[in-house]
C-alpha cells in the first residue's frame, strides 16, 4: 500500500531547508487542463505532475479509494488541487523548488523528518537480525505501527446508507519482492468474518459498514492489521513484511487455524521453505519426495516419483505446474523430480475435496506453482550438488509491474557412470530442465502470466540404445478484475510429453521408436463474491488431445525394420462447472460443486469392433469401422459432484465431511511396478471405458497451543470403476489392438489418516500415520481371464501401515538440523508358487498376483543446513546443506525376485539405496 511516487530520491531531502515555503501558495503557478470522470487521485496527481513538471510527494496510504470527477480547462494548479482534495482532510503545499507536498492533516512546507522512515526499511532490520534472539524491535517499532494505527477511510463518507455491507478487495504482496502472498487469512474479529487470499494474492471480503480492525495473517509473514472506516466499496492493497526467523517469539493467532476453518478437506499445502528443509537423497530439494511424506500418499519404492494417493494409481494424479499438465514427473530413473526447487513456490495436494475447476483424474490434484519473480530487484540463486547444479535469475522487467524468473537445472552424472566397470563405461545419462515465468501487471485490473517449461532426459547404454524423454509446456494466463466482487482468469496453453528410443546395436534391427502426447487447452474460471455468505466459482474448460501411440521405424539405412506407425488418437475433453461456498452462520459452512465433463473421441480412426458379450480378444474381432477426420467416434460424459461441509464445534475443533466423484478419460498403460519413462498413455475409446471414482470422507480437526499445533484425523472410502489392469503376458508397446491385452478392474480403497503438524517455532515438522488398503478385483469371466479367481487382490502400492516423521530443529539462525523417518509395510509382490524344468533350466512358476509382501520399509535421513552470515549488504548469501540419506544403512528391498541363472533359480532382494548415502549441496543467493 505504501506507494511512494518519488522520481528522485535523495536523503538530502530529509535535510531540506524548506521552511520558507508558503502553504497554499497561489503565486506563479502553471495552468492545467484536466477532464476526468471517476479517476483515482494517484493517477490524477501523476497527470498533473506531467503537465506542470512539478514533483509531487505523497503517500497513497493517505488517500482512500474513492474516485473523483474533475473537469478544468487552463485552471491554476492550486484551484485544481483544492477541488481534488476538498472534504478529505488532505492538505498540500508547494515550495519554491516546485515540489508539491501532499499530506494528511497539517500542511507541511517540506517533508516531515520521518517521511522516508515510514518506508519499510526491511534491509536494515535484516542486518540486525543476525542474533540468536528474536530480532530487535527498535528499528521498526514505529513504522509498521504508523501504518497499523492509521485509519483508512474506504468509500465516500456520505455515499449511501451507513448500514449494510461493503466490499473491500485488493492484493496482498510481499513488501520486498512484490510477490503475491497466497493463502493469507484476512479477517475481522467481530463479527467474525474471514477470507483467504487466492493464488494471485487477491482477496475480496464483504464487511459491515463502519469501523473495523482488519487482521492479516500468513505463515512466514509478520502479522499485521489495518484500521478501516468503511463507508462503501473500495480497494485496499496490503504489503506484508516477511518474517526473517521466528525463534523465541511464538506467533499466537486464531486465524492461522485455516485447517479448522477451511471447508475443504484432505488438502495439504507445503511451501518451498519446508520442502528445502527435508533431507533427500543427493541433497537436492525435491518437491515430490516431500509430498510422499504426507498422509495418504505412497509410492512403490525409492526410485519412483509416481504418487499413489489414497489408493489411486500413479496416473490418477493431475500434476499441474502453473496450469500445465506434466505427464512425466521424473528425472534420471526417478531419482529426481522434474521440478526445480529454486523456481517452485509451493505445492498443494488435493486428495479428497478436489475443487470443481479441476477434473480429469481420479485420485488427486497436485498443484505446483512457481514464483512470480522479484518485482523490485534483480536477484538470483545457484546451487551445486554432487549430481546436479541449478541456477535461477529473477527480477523486474518493469519495476513493480513486470517480473520474470528464469531457472535452469542440469546434471553431470556421467562421472558416476565412468566409475563403472569397463563394459558400461560408454553409458551416458543426463537431464536438464528450464523454467521461464513472466508476470505482467498491465494495470490494476489486468494481469498477464506467461510460463514456459521444458525438461529433457537422455541416457544411453554403451552407445547402443538411447532413451530420451521430455515435457514441453507453455501457457498464457490473463486475470481480469471486473469489480471488487468479480474476477476472471482465462488461460490457454500447450502441453507435450514425448519419448524416443533408438538402437543401432544390430544393423538389421536398428530402429527408432517413439510416443508423444500433445494437448491444447483453454480454461475460463470466474470468481464471484456474491455476499459474505456466498462465493461462487464457475467456468468452463476444453482440452484437445492428440496422441501418437507409437511409431517404429528403421534406424539406419541398412535396417530392415518395417515402419509401423499406429494411428493417432484425438479427443476433446470439455467441462462446465459451478461451485458455491456457502456460510450458514459462523459455525457451519458448505461448499457444493458440480462439474459436467464430456469426452468426445474424434476421428480419423479405424475402430475395432468385438463381438458383444464375448471376451475382447483378437479371435472375437468382427470388424473395423473407419471414421473420418473430426467425426465423433464415441462420447462419454457425466456429472461429477464435489461436496464438502464443515461444522465448527469450538474455536479450535471442527468436523468436516465430503463426497466427490471423478471421471478420467486418459489412462497410463504400464505393467511395470514403477512409472517408467517408456510408459504410454491411452485415451478412452469404444473399447476402453473411462475410469470412474467416488469417495466419501470424514474428518476431525483440532488445534492446540494457540493453533501452533494442528491435528487431524480423516477417514475415507473410495470406489474405483474400470481401472485398467493387464492380462498375463500383455504386449503394451506398439500394439494396434491394445484393448485385447487390457482388462477393466473394479477397486476399493479405504483408510484412516492421522496428522500432527507444528509449523512454527524452533522445532517444527509433522508426524503422519496412515492405515489404508487398496484392493482390486476382476471377476467378469467375459472380460477375458479372471485374476486371482475373481477375488480381491491388493494393488501394487497397497501398503497398509505407513508412518512418517519430518522434523526440523533450528539451533540458531544459521544452523538447523532436519530429520525424517519413515516406516511402511512392504508392498505386495507376486512370488513363485513352484519351480519346474524347461529349456535346460530350472524355472519359476507364478499364479496369483500380489499375494505376498516384500519386507517392511524403514529409513531415516538427516541433514544440516548451515547458512552464511545474514548481513544484508553483501554481494551474496550462501548456505551449505550436508546430510546423510538412509542414515541407518538399512537395505530396504525395492523388489524381491527370482531369476534363472545358469540353469538354476536364484532369489534376490534388490535395494536401490543399500547403504547410507552422504550428500553435500552448496547454495548461493545474489
Amino acid at each position: 500500500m505504501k506507494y511512494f511516487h518519488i522520481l528522485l530520491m535523495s536523503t538530502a531531502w530529509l535535510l531540506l531547508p524548506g521552511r520558507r515555503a508558503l502553504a497554499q501558495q497561489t503565486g506563479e503557478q502553471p495552468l492545467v487542463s484536466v477532464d476526468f470522470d471517476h479517476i483515482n487521485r494517484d493517477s490524477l496527481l501523476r497527470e498533473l505532475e506531467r503537465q506542470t513538471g512539478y514533483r509531487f510527494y505523497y503517500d497513497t496510504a493517505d488517500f482512500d479509494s474513492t474516485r473523483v470527477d474533475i473537469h478544468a480547462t487552463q485552471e491554476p494548479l492550486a484551484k485544481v488541487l483544492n477541488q481534488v482534495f476538498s472534504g478529505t482532510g488532505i492538505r498540500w503545499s508547494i515550495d519554491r523548488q516546485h515540489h508539491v507536498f501532499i499530506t494528511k492533516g497539517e500542511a507541511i512546507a517540506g517533508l516531515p523528518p520521518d517521511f522516508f522512515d515510514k518506508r519499510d526499511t526491511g534491509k536494515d532490520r535484516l542486518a540486525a537480525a543476525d542474533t540468536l534472539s528474536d530480532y530487535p524491535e527498535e528499528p521498526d517499532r514505529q513504522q509498521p505501527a504508523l501504518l497499523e494505527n492509521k485509519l483508512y477511510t474506504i468509500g465516500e463518507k456520505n455515499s449511501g446508507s451507513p448500514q449494510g455491507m461493503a466490499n473491500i478487495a485488493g492484493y496482498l504482496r510481499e513488501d520486498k519482492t512484490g510477490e503475491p502472498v497466497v493463502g493469507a487469512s484476512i479477517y475481522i474479529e467481530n463479527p467474525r468474518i474471514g477470507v483467504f487470499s487466492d493464488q494471485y494474492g487477491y482477496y475480496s471480503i464483504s464487511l459491515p459498514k463502519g469501523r473495523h480492525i482488519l487482521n492479516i495473517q500468513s505463515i512466514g509473514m509478520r502479522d499485521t492489521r489495518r484500521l478501516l472506516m468503511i463507508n462503501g466499496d473500495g480497494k485496499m492493497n496490503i504489503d506484508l513484511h516477511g518474517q526473517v526467523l521466528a525463534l523465541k517469539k511464538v506467533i499466537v493467532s486464531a486465524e492461522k487455524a485455516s485447517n479448522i476453518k477451511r471447508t475443504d478437506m484432505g488438502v495439504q499445502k507445503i511451501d518451498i521453505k519446508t520442502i528445502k528443509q527435508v533431507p533427500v537423497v543427493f541433497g537436492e530439494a525435491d518437491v515430490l519426495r516431500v509430498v510422499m511424506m504426507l498422509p495418504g500418499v505412497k509410492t512403490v519404492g525409492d526410485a519412483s516419483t509416481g504418487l499413489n494417493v489414497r489408493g489411486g494409481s500413479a496416473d490418477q494424479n493431475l500434476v499441474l505446474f502453473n496450469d500445465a499438465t506434466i505427464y512425466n514427473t521424473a528425472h534420471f530413473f526417478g531419482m529426481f523430480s522434474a521440478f526445480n526447487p529454486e523456481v517452485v513456490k509451493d505445492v498443494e495436494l488435493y486428495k479428497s475435496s478436489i475443487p470443481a475447476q479441476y477434473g480429469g483424474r481420479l485420485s488427486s490434484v497436485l498443484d505446483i506453482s512457481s514464483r512470480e519473480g522479484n518485482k523490485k530487484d534483480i536477484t538470483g540463486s545457484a546451487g551445486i550438488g554432487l549430481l546436479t547444479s541449478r541456477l535461477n535469475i529473477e527480477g523486474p522487467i518493469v519495476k513493480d509491474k513486470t517480473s520474470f524468473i528464469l531457472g535452469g537445472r542440469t546434471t553431470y552424472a556421467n562421472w558416476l557412470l565412468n566409475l563403472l566397470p569397463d563394459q558400461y563405461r560408454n553409458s551416458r545419462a543426463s537431464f536438464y530442465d528450464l523454467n521461464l515465468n513472466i508476470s505482467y501487471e498491465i494495470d490494476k485490473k489486468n494481469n498477464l502470466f506467461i510460463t514456459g517449461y521444458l525438461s529433457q532426459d537422455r541416457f544411453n547404454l554403451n552407445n547402443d540404445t538411447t532413451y530420451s524423454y521430455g515435457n514441453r509446456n507453455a501457457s498464457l494466463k490473463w486475470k481480469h478484475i471486473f469489480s471488487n466482487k468479480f474476477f476472471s482468469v482465462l488461460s490457454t496453453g500447450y502441453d507435450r510429453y514425448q519419448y524416443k528410443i533408438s538402437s543401432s546395436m544390430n544393423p538389421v534391427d536398428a530402429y527408432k521408436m517413439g510416443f508423444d502426447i500433445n494437448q491444447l487447452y483453454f480454461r475460463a474460471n470466474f470468481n464471484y463474491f456474491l455476499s459474505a455468505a456466498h462465493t461462487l466459482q464457475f467456468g468452463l474448460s476444453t482440452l484437445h488431445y492428440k496422441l501418437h501411440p507409437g511409431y517404429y521405424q528403421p534406424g539406419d539405412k541398412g535396417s530392415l525394420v518395417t515402419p509401423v506407425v499406429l494411428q493417432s488418437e484425438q479427443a476433446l475433453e470439455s467441462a462446465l462447472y459451478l461451485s458455491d461456498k456457502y456460510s450458514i452462520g459462523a459455525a457451519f459452512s458448505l461448499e457444493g460443486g458440480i462439474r459436467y465433463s464430456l469426452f468426445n473421441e474424434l476421428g480419423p480412426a479405424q475402430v475395432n469392433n468385438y463381438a458383444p458379450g464375448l471376451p475382447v480378444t483378437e479371435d472375437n474381432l468382427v470388424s473395423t469401422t473407419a471414421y473420418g477426420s473430426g467425426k465423433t467416434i464415441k462420447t462419454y460424459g457425466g456429472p461429477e459432484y464435489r461436496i464438502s461441509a464443515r461444522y465448527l464445534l469450538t474455536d479450535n475443533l471442527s468436523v468436516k465431511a465430503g463426497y466427490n466423484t471423478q471421471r478420467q478419460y486418459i489412462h497410463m498403460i504400464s505393467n511395470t511396478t514403477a512409472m517408467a519413462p517408456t510408459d504410454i498413455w491411452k485415451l478412452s475409446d469404444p473399447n476402453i471405458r473411462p475410469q470412474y471414482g467416488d469417495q466419501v470422507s470424514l474428518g476431525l480437526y483440532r488445534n492446540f497451543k494457540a493453533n501452533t499445533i494442528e491435528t487431524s484425523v480423516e477417514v475415507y472410502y473410495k470406489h474405483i470403476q474400470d481401472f485398467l489392469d493387464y492380462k498375463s503376458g500383455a504386449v503394451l508397446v506398439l500394439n494396434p489392438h491394445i484393448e485385447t491385452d487390457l482388462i477393466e478392474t473394479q477397486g476399493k480403497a479405504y483408510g484412516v489418516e492421522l496428522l500432527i503438524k507444528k509449523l512454527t517455532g524452533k522445532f517444527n515438522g509433522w508426524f503422519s500415520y496412515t492405515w489404508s488398503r487398496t484392493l482390486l478385483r476382476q471377476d467378469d469371466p467375459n472380460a477375458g481371464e479372471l485374476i486371482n479367481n475373481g477375488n480381491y487382490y491388493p494393488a501394487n502400492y497397497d501398503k497398509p501401515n505407513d508412518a512418517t516423521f519430518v522434523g526440523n530443529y533450528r539451533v540458531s539462525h544459521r544452523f538447523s538440523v532436519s530429520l525424517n523417518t519413515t516406516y511402511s509395510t512392504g508392498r505386495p509382490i507376486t512370488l513363485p508358487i513352484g519351480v519346474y524344468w524347461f529349456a535346460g533350466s530350472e524355472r519359476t512358476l507364478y499364479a496369483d498376483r500380489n499375494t505376498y509382501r516384500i519386507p517392511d520399509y524403514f529409513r531415516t535421513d538427516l541433514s544440516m543446513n548451515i547458512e552464511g552470515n545474514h548481513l544484508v549488504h553483501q554481494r551474496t548469501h550462501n548456505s551449505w546443506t550436508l546430510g546423510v540419506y538412509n542414515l541407518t544403512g538399512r537395505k530396504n528391498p525395492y523388489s524381491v525376485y527370482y531369476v534363472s541363472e545358469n540353469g538354476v533359480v536364484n532369489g534376490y532382494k534388490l535395494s536401490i539405496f543399500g547403504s547410507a548415502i552422504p550428500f553435500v549441496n552448496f547454495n548461493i543467493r545474489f
Partner: protein
Amino acid sequence: MKTTRRSISLLSLLLAVLAPLMQCKEAYVSPYAPPATGWLVVEGYITGNSPVSYTLSRVAKLAADTTRIYELNAAVQIEGNDNSIYTLTGQGNGLYVSAGLLPLDPSAKYRLRITTASGRKYLSDYAPYKITPPIDSINWVENGNGVTICANAHDDAGTTRYYEWSYDETWEYHSAEDSKYVYAEDSVAPTVLPRDSSNQVYTCWHNGSSTNILLTTTDKLSRDLVYEFPLRQIPLNSVPLSVLYSILVRQYALTDSGYNFLNLMKKNSESLGTIFDAQPSELTGNIHCLTDPTEPVIGFVSAGTMQQQRVFVSRSDIPVWNYSYKCQFLDTLVIPTDYQTYFGTGGGYTPVEGKTSGLGYSGYYSNQSYCVNCILQGGTTDKPTFWPN
C-alpha cells in the same frame, strides 16, 4: 505385435549399471511356505527329421534343494489330423521317445495326448507343421566382453517369422600341468606308477546345453531375416575358448502363440528383476487336462522341421584370448613317506613329474589335483566322436 527383444529390457539393464554405486542385491529366501502344486510340465517338439522326444515332469516346491520330479509310465501319443497316431515310449527319467524318424506330413497338424499312470488325461491343441528354414550360418563376434556366438537365418517366403534355438556345446580344455604319474592306492605298499594314455587327465571335454530360452521374431522387419542373433556369450579370456570350442545349434520355427508362450516364460524366469521390468504373470499353454479342466499344464506343443548346424571356434581364431590357469607350477615335492598323506584319498595332490636322485625317484613334484586332473573341473576325458584330430 511383439516387443523387440532389446527395447525394454535394456532399460532394466541400465539400472543394473548403477548397481555398484547404489543398488544392492542380496540373496533372498522366501519366508513363505510354498503351496503344493505338482502340475504337469511337458517339453518337446514334434518333428520329422529327428526322433521326437518329450520330457514329462512335475512342478516342484520352491526350496533350496529341489529335485526334479519325473512323470514315469505315462502313455504318450502324437496324433495327426490325418488320423495318424505315433506312440512314444518311456526311456526313464521322464523321457518319451519315438521309434526312429516319424513320417510326418508337412500339410497336417499334430497334437499330443498323454495319459498318466494315475489315469489323468491330457490333450494339446493341434499344432501346424512348420517348415524351418536352414541355418544360414553360425558365426562369432568378438567384442569387449568376450566372444558372442550368433545365429543367422532367413526365409525368403517370409512365413517363418518366429525362431527358436537351442544348442549343445563342447569345449576342449587342458589341465595346468600334464601329470605323467598316477598314485596307486595301496595301504600296504603305496606307490606311484607311470600314467598310461588311456588314463590321461590332461585333456578334457566339457559338455553343456543352452539354459536360456533363445528366440526372436522378425515380424517387425521387411524381410524374414535373422542377423547375428546372440546365442551364447563366452566371457573374455574364459576357459571355453582356451583350446577349441564347438557348438551344435538347433533351429525351430514357431507359431506366434508358441512364441508368445516361450517369450512369457522367458520374461517370467530370466528377466533381470530390476525396477522397470514387467511383473511376472500367469503362463497358459496349449495343453489341457481333460480330467480336470481347471488344472494348469505347463507346456506348449509345436511341430515342424528342425535344422541344425555345428561349428568350431579355436583359440587361435581369436586375436587375443588370455586364458590363464589359476595354478602355480610344480610347487610341491612329495617324498615317499608322504605319498599316502598327499596323494591318498583327501590328500588333494596329484604327482606330476618324478624327481630322480641316483637309484630312482626320490619323490614327485606334484600339484593340487584341481590343477592337474581336468576331470575335477567338470569335464570328461571321453573324446566326443565329432571332435577333430
